[in-house]
């Protein structure tokens, strides 16, 4: 197979990955850089790519300052308590003060936002969520990005970033391949905004066989946000903070609208309320600052998501499962019943299919809930991602190095899952982060920071050989055996993924071990990870589709290694219900009220870990 080299030169802003973060970046970049060259490289088709490909039934991050509902700092406090204190409050405040302007534009573009007939304000699902008819959310924002970009390259799997050879630690573009034509694509760019996705499928899923694709986060979220940034030597933060979701069993249908809008609630197999009885013990583990049911009851302060998971997991392990969502009361109201079904059809069709297949009508029976396998991402109720600069007017010195949302690599920016410490951004917040990164990237260029970038032909040719190696490896070795998938020198992407998932599950706190790990297990797991890395040299791809899977796998591996390193570093159990360090089963604010920051040396693969201070927003008189 010939792989022509196609070079796109003189790009100003290259957007890698066009989900909500990337579309926001491309759209906004045109305003600040009306004469700039803006290019999008997207692994799939921009009209249906990213986590919102299938649609959404709610926008989960909307302040409503227009209706006097919340201020940005209210949202910061909410995200802070939900993540047990470990967030980047400068980035959160910044996202929250801008997010409403994105949502108001969405409405103008045609996204159907529901309105409360009494107040005229957007229909609230909860304090932060508004309800939408979002089947076409993605095509609508894609249209905005397409109007701004000079060109959208669909079906380009970006595998690596290019690095400047005249100045160390400065980005110079990206490379990848076209999954349809097999051509090699080189994007030479002054700035790159990585807006690729977080990581599903790095932990062994509960489902088997076909159902392995019924993951909570999209199967195409291959951790490329992290794989690309880690390979470039960008510092990462909070990568230990994986998320576990309590969802409807097997279909992983969302529960937000059910809890918040339909007012359904959970009970154990005996029909009892179970959460509160786990709280006294849990309070001893994490401290009253983080779990205070009385204060929560009084002030509507949320109980952190991980702690509610903890109660569910322990109740099931105590033999009082299954946990049921009590829908039979709410679903007697035909309007609420309709909302319940449309909620699934709008964003998780598979749950509707499953209930149809199993004759579950939530009007007549209460469906089961379960906790998922862990996921690594940075825009839902967790904040894995790159260590990025905040905005000048908010960030303390440790959090600021010149350009908003710029990683520790010059000219390399992040948005959405790529940015660490900013949970609860969701779709609208990710779009907003893309906008912020785009403005900063244009400023970086206008300030003359991207001058004199040099990329040698050698760098480009070396990457080309590396990218297509799995195809070549397969061709060279396949005839060594008669037929079949068992081969002494070829590992298929699926076989390697299975190995990664099993390893992560058993040593890094997956679902089959009830999210438990410890230092010994982590060290064994990391040894096995190194050996797996060696074997990834023998990845074989029979065709371009498998080559795509091979590179997704390499990004998942890089993500996983980072999760191991961070989990080992943080010697405490900060988020019971997300994972447990069995050797240190307590939250330890004295030593670990800090953000974890890592860097993988791109040349040696060695990790260095450090603690970064955790700043909180407080009143000026506190």
């Amino acid at each position, binding site marked *: 197979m010939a792989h022509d080299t196609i070079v796109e030169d003189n790009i100003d802003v290259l957007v890698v990955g066009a989900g909500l973060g990337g579309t926001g970046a491309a*759209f906004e970049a*045109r*305003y*600040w850089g009306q004469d700039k060259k803006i290019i999008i490289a997207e692994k*799939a*088709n921009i009209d*249906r790519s990213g986590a919102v490909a*299938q649609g959404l039934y709610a926008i989960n991050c909307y302040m409503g*300052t227009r209706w006097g509902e919340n*201020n*940005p*700092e209210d949202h910061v*406090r909410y995200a802070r*308590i939900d993540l047990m204190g470990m967030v980047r409050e400068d980035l959160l405040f910044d996202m929250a*003060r*801008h997010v409403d*302007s994105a949502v108001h*534009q969405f409405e103008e*573009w*045609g*996204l*159907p936002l529901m309105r409360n007939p009494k107040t005229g304000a957007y229909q609230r699902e909860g304090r932060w969520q508004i309800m939408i*008819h979002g*089947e076409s959310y993605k095509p*609508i924002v894609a249209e905005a990005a397409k*109007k701004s970009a000079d060109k959208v390259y669909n079906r380009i799997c970006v595998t690596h970033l290019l690095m400047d050879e005249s100045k160390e630690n400065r980005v110079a573009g990206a490379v990848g391949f076209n999954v349809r034509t097999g051509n090699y694509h080189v994007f030479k760019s002054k700035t790159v905004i990585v807006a690729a996705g977080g990581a599903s499928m790095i932990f062994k899923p509960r489902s088997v*066989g*076909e*159902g*392995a*694709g019924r993951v909570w986060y*999209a*199967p*195409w979220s291959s951790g490329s946000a992290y794989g690309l940034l880690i390979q470039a030597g960008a510092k990462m933060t909070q990568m230990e903070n994986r998320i576990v979701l309590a969802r409807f069993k*097997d279909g992983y249908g969302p529960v937000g609208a059910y809890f918040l809008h339909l007012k359904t609630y959970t009970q154990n197999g005996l029909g009892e309320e179970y959460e509160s009885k786990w709280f006294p013990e849990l309070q001893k583990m994490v401290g009253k*600052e983080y779990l205070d049911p009385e204060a929560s009851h009084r002030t509507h302060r949320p109980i952190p998501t991980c702690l509610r998971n903890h109660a569910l997991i322990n109740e099931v392990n105590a033999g009082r499962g299954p946990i049921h969502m009590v829908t039979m009361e709410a679903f007697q109201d035909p309007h609420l019943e*309709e909302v319940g*079904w*449309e909620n699934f059809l*709008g964003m998780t*069709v*598979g749950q509707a*299919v*499953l209930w*149809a*297949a*199993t*004759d579950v*009508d939530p009007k007549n029976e209460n469906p089961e809930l379960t906790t998922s396998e862990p996921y690594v991402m940075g825009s839902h109720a967790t904040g894995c991602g790159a260590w990025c600069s905040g*905005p000048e*007017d*908010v*960030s*303390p010195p440790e959090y600021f190095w010149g350009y908003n949302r710029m990683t520790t690599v010059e000219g390399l920016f992040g948005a959405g899952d790529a940015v660490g410490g900013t949970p609860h951004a969701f779709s609208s917040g990710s779009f907003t982060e893309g906008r912020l990164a785009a403005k900063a990237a244009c400023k970086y260029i206008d300030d003359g920071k991207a001058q004199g970038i040099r990329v040698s032909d050698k760098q480009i040719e070396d990457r080309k050989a590396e990218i297509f190696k799995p195809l070549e490896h397969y061709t060279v070795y396949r005839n060594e055996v008669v037929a079949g998938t068992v081969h002494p020198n070829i590992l298929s992407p699926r076989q390697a993924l299975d190995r990664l998932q099993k390893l992560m599950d058993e040593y890094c706190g997956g679902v089959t071990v009830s999210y438990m790990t410890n230092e010994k297990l982590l060290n064994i797991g990391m040894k096995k990870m190194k050996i797996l890395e060696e074997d990834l040299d023998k990845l074989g791809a029979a065709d371009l*589709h498998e080559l795509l899977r091979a590179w997704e796998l390499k990004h998942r591996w890089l993500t996983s290694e980072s999760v191991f390193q961070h989990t080992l570093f943080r010697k405490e159990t900060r988020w019971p219900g997300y994972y447990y360090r069995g050797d240190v089963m307590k939250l330890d*604010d004295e030593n670990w009220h800090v953000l974890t920051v890592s860097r993988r040396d791109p040349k040696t693969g060695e990790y260095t870990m450090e603690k970064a201070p*955790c700043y*909180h*927003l407080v*009143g000026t008189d506190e």
Partner: protein
Amino acid sequence: MPTFVYMTRCDGCGYCVDICPSDIMHIDPTTRRAYNIEPSMCWECYSCVKACPHHAIDARGYADFAPLGHSVRVDRDEERGTIAWKIKFRDGREKEFLSPITTKPWGKHIPKLAEVSGPSKEMRDSQLLFNEPKYIRMDDGGLHTLESNGLKMKEGVYY
């Protein structure tokens, strides 16, 4: 529920191949029709089902937990701006739902930012984004800052 394609309805047009976010709808070289090459990487997102002009694609719940005998069919109509769903349970019951997908003609109300008047220097030096501050509150209010909201950043364990 991985997707599958009905032999007699598919004409091999490739719309599903073009749209699939997971790159798993491919054309079978023998029949020249589309099929799902990797069901375990299918998120049942329905992008291909909605894109198929012949309604040739359907989904069957994942074999490892979903019994047979159900269907969830969809008709997405861009011109009317609606999406219609029909759910058939295994026991034969049916439910139907209809929702809007847009309130405006496609793309007509999305601005082309190359053609709007560009930002002033003052705007560039501020923290504002396009359409701000107006679109934050749809009034004349400004952007929230630490100062305007009486806040500061403090290191350590403070809540």
